[in-house]
Structures are given as structure tokens and as C-alpha cells.
């Protein structure tokens, strides 16, 4: 959360609250590089012109919109700036609405808003007033060159800016073939309700759910990086598995021993910083 990704202001009636925007959700995907199999060279992308087949430097690249097959309208940076919707770097609050009046499908991505020093008081005021009203603010937001619609919600001590989809981005479900509310036997309904009851929890605990694919992939990568093949997949019977593991353990103990004698006194790679008290 070190760097603000944007700074601007919330406009709310006559009040202006200078704020910074911070990422509130981070992707936790493993990222891979593409390599040439035979020599592990990194694969590079080159921008090549389809007419003369030669690489093109950035300063010779322009943007074009294909309005008809093979026909382009060229747009320059100035053109983009011209239609730039009052690039005021602002969160302009338009209206307030109760949160459950907004379909959750509209919410896209949350960001934290942090006030600057001058904005703290007004920020707290807006937060507390929102929390008390059970409503959220709907705002028009300009970030860099794009305009968005967003909701501003109080969550804990923070105001959260949640970017929303435009109405035309939401795909209607009426193109799907869905059953209506034709007669459902009461008995089956009862069973369905009972099933829901027995599987209900009081609180949603997201930390209960882990990304197994991600974890296992990471475990495999760690094992490979440590120069070891993974113990074979789960299918083997328990007993031979223990025998396999015994070998792995013996190897790993041996490796630890070797590491100990190699690395005696060598500082670990972590850097530690200690400041003395003022």
C-alpha cells in the first residue's frame, strides 16, 4: 500500500476533500515468463509493421479505430485530451442511495481513499454521516484519462471507492433459458430450505477458503527450485507413501546438515533494520 495510485479530491456540495487512492485488492496470481525451451532465453515481443515487416519504434506508433474493415480513423494524444471529460481528477458525488438498492453485479473494484492533512476533518464528517445514513454516495470519477461511475462507502475507518460498471456493460439475463416460478412441490421446497439451513454459517470467513490450485502450484515450484522432484501424487497407498517420504526426509536431513556446515555464520538474506528510540 506504499504508493498512492492517484490523488485528487472528493467534491460534495460546496465541500472539497483532497484524497489519495490506494489499492484495496491485490491479485495473487503466480506470474510466469515465457522461455525458449532449449536455452531458457526470455521470449521478447517486438512491434513489427505488417506492411514493411520492420520493427517500429514507439514514436512512430499512433492509435487507429477501425470503423470499417481496413479503414481507420487516426487519433492523436491531443484528440484524446480534447474529449477528456473535464480531466479534473475528481470524485464528484452526484447522489446518495441505500446500498441494497444497487445490484451487487454493478460493483467492480474497490480502492481505499485516504485524506490528505487538510482533508481529514471533512473526510471524517462524510464517513460518519454516511455510516449513520446507511447510504452510499454515487459519484462520477475521472482517473487519468478515463471516466467511471463509482460508489463511495464507509468501511471501518476508511472510505472506500468502488468502481462500478456502466449500465450498458451489464449483460441482461433474459437471453438465457431459465425456469420461471412454476409450481414447485412444497415438500421439495422444505427439503431445499432445510439443506440451506444445515449448511448455513453465522459469519462468512474468507480465510477458510484457500486457493488450492495456487498453493499446490507454488509448492511444486518451491520443490523444483530446491532441486527436488515432488513426492509422487496422492494415488499411492498410504504405507508405500510413508516409505517414500522416509527417503525424502533422509535426503532433506542430509541437505540441512550440509547447509549447516556450508553456511556457518553466513548472514541470512533478510535485511533487518533497527532504529534506536528517539
Amino acid at each position, binding site marked *: *500500500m*506504499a504508493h498512492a495510485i492517484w490523488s485528487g479530491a472528493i467534491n460534495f456540495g460546496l465541500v472539497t476533500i483532497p484524497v489519495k487512492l490506494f489499492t484495496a485488492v*491485490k*491479485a*495473487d496470481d*503466480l*506470474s510466469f515468463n515465457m522461455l525458449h525451451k532449449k536455452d531458457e532465453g526470455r521470449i521478447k515481443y517486438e512491434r513489427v509493421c505488417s506492411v514493411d515487416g520492420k520493427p517500429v519504434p514507439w514514436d512512430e506508433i499512433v492509435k487507429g479505430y477501425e470503423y470499417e474493415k481496413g479503414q481507420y480513423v487516426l487519433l492523436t494524444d491531443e484528440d484524446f485530451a480534447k474529449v477528456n471529460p473535464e480531466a479534473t481528477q475528481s470524485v464528484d458525488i452526484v447522489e446518495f442511495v441505500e446500498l441494497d438498492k444497487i445490484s451487487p453485479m454493478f460493483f467492480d473494484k474497490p480502492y481505499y481513499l485516504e485524506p490528505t492533512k487538510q482533508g481529514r476533518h471533512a473526510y*471524517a464528517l462524510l464517513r*460518519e454521516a454516511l*455510516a*449513520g445514513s446507511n447510504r452510499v454516495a454515487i459519484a462520477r470519477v475521472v482517473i487519468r484519462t478515463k471516466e467511471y461511475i463509482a460508489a463511495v462507502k464507509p*468501511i*471501518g*475507518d*476508511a472510505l472506500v471507492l468502488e468502481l462500478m460498471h456502466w449500465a450498458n456493460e451489464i449483460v441482461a439475463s433474459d437471453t438465457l433459458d431459465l425456469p420461471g416460478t412454476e409450481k414447485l412441490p412444497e415438500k421439495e421446497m422444505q427439503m431445499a430450505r432445510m439443506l440451506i439451513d444445515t449448511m448455513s454459517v453465522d*459469519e462468512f470467513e474468507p*480465510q*477458510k477458503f484457500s486457493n*488450492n490450485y495456487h498453493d499446490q502450484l*507454488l509448492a511444486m*515450484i*518451491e*520443490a523444483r527450485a*530446491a532441486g*527436488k522432484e515432488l513426492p509422487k501424487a496422492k494415488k499411492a497407498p*498410504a*504405507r508405500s*507413501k*510413508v*516409505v517414500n*517420504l*522416509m527417503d*525424502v*526426509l*533422509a535426503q*532433506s*536431513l542430509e*541437505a*540441512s*546438515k550440509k*547447509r*549447516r556446515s556450508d553456511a556457518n555464520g553466513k*548472514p*541470512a*538474506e*533478510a*535485511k*533487518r*533494520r*533497527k*532504529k*534506536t*528510540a*528517539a
Partner: protein
Amino acid sequence: MSSKERSTVSVGAQMLSLSNLEKLLWPRDGYTKGDLIAYYRSVAPRAIAHLKDRPLTLQRYPNGIDGETFFEKQMPRGMPEWIERVTVPTPGGSRSEVTFALCNDEPSLVYFANLAAIVLHVWTSRVPALDEPEFVLFDLDPGEKCTLRTLATVTLAIRTLLAEIGLKPLVKTTGGYGLHVVVPLAAGYSYETAKVFAEIVARHAAAELGELATLQRTIAKRPQTAVYIDYVQVGLGKTIVAPYSVRARDGAPVSTPLHWAEVEGFARRSALAPADEFAKHTIRTLPGRVAREGDLWGPKAWKKQRLEGPSAKAGRLWTERG
């Protein structure tokens, strides 16, 4: 709307400005942020012994236990200079390194409690030897319909298996439903070693215990009456709820080190949900218990053990019989 008054207190060598001490964190118990801070101060020397030099992840509840929670690995923004920290490279992470806070003294602990960091998660290793875990860990997680007696039976079975190969484990409540069993390690073992060793013990225990225990990682596929033996919670960057950490549940339960005799007592009890028993140890009761019992995971009990002998013994004993 709560009043946002601040009060300044001196803790050790530091002056700390605390905010919103009246903020209700446990609405049904009436415990406030002030109570949380007072609890952590009352057990500070014991708690810090286990937090010291271990990269810390704060689990914060700015709006109390019913509100949103977030995990903070990267040290909090605005953290004072006098709190120690460690920067760790994070291969594969979204940033190339993370600077973790360390909780090495009482003022730091109070600072974190003031951030409504109810739960303190720590690495299993310490600076500077961050690649050497200090214990083997079994995280014993009872299913929804598992009784205290079953949990205790499984826990004691693991203790017996470890004793059979010459190891002495320690036990604590997680503060939630389960128990943590650890084998303190001598220096110099890798995560790989700790993990593989734990897997061997867990597989053997599961085979011996039959339907009482499961190694099934997918929650939905576990029998609800069994204990899940989780042996994969030791690794680079993996964390454990620290001893004496508070949990964000009603009653403000605390992760509490236990006597083995207490676990033996559980095994004789009739049907009772584990959480009900463990909920007896809270921020109200712990200061008294710690004054009476001392730190059951303290230096006297924390025997650092080697794995070579026990591994060889396990190889002989557990691969012969079926």
C-alpha cells in the same frame, strides 16, 4: 458515533498516543479497544517471548469483530521508526519484497493493539534465520460435529507416536475450535525437513486412528465427526496464530498453552464441542492463569530437539508394521 478522543500513555521508553479506547470491539461482551490493549499489556512479557523477531501479520478489525477484517503483512503505514522491522524478498509475490513489522517490546505490542489488531499471526522462524523453522507443527482442526473427546484422543495419539520415537511435543489451543501441537526444533532444519517429517507423522497417525482423523484438505469431503490433521502449515512465509493472541470471536478467547494433563482431562469428558471448552480462556481469565501457571511454552518447557534419531526410529518402527 463514538467520540474520537486520544489519550497519551507512556509504555516503556515510548510515549504512545492511543485513540478510541472506548470503541466496542466485542459488541456482545462489551469489550472495548481499551480492554484489548490492557489484556496485551498484562501478558506482554509472555506474549513477546513468542512474537520476538518473527515477521508479524496483523489481522485488524477496525470496526470490531462483526466488521470487516484485513490481513496486513506489509508493516502499517505510518508505523513509528522505533518499531523494528525486517525486509524479506518475496519471489512470486505481487511486490518484490515485503517489510514486516516485528513485535519485540511492549510499546510495539500496544501500538499494534491500538490498531485493533486483534489477531497476531507470526512466522514459524525468526530473524535472522528466516529459512529455519523453530518447530514442527500439527494443526488439529475438529470437524463440525467432532467432540472434545475425539479431538483430545487424536491429540494424545499424536503425542504418543512422537514419544515412541523420542520426541516431546507441546500443545496450545488455537483460540478457536482446535489445538496446535508443536515439536520445538534445534537450529538448522529446513522447512522441507519440518514439512516432510510432519507429513510422515500425520500419515502414520491417520492410518492408526481410522475414522477419528482425516488428512482430507477439502473441507466438504472431510467427515464432520473427525479431526483434520493439517501438517502443511510450516513453510516460508506461512504463519501461525501466536500463543496469547486474542481471537475475533464472541467472548474474546485467547490462544492458550495447555498442560498435557488438561488434554488428558478432555479425553474423559462426555460430548462437548471443543470450542465451548477452549472459550473458557479469554482476555478476562488469561492474566490470572498466566500469573498462576507461568508460560507453559516458556524456556523450561521449550526443549529444542533434533530429528535425526527420531527419523531413523520412525523409519524402523512405522514402515515395518502395516
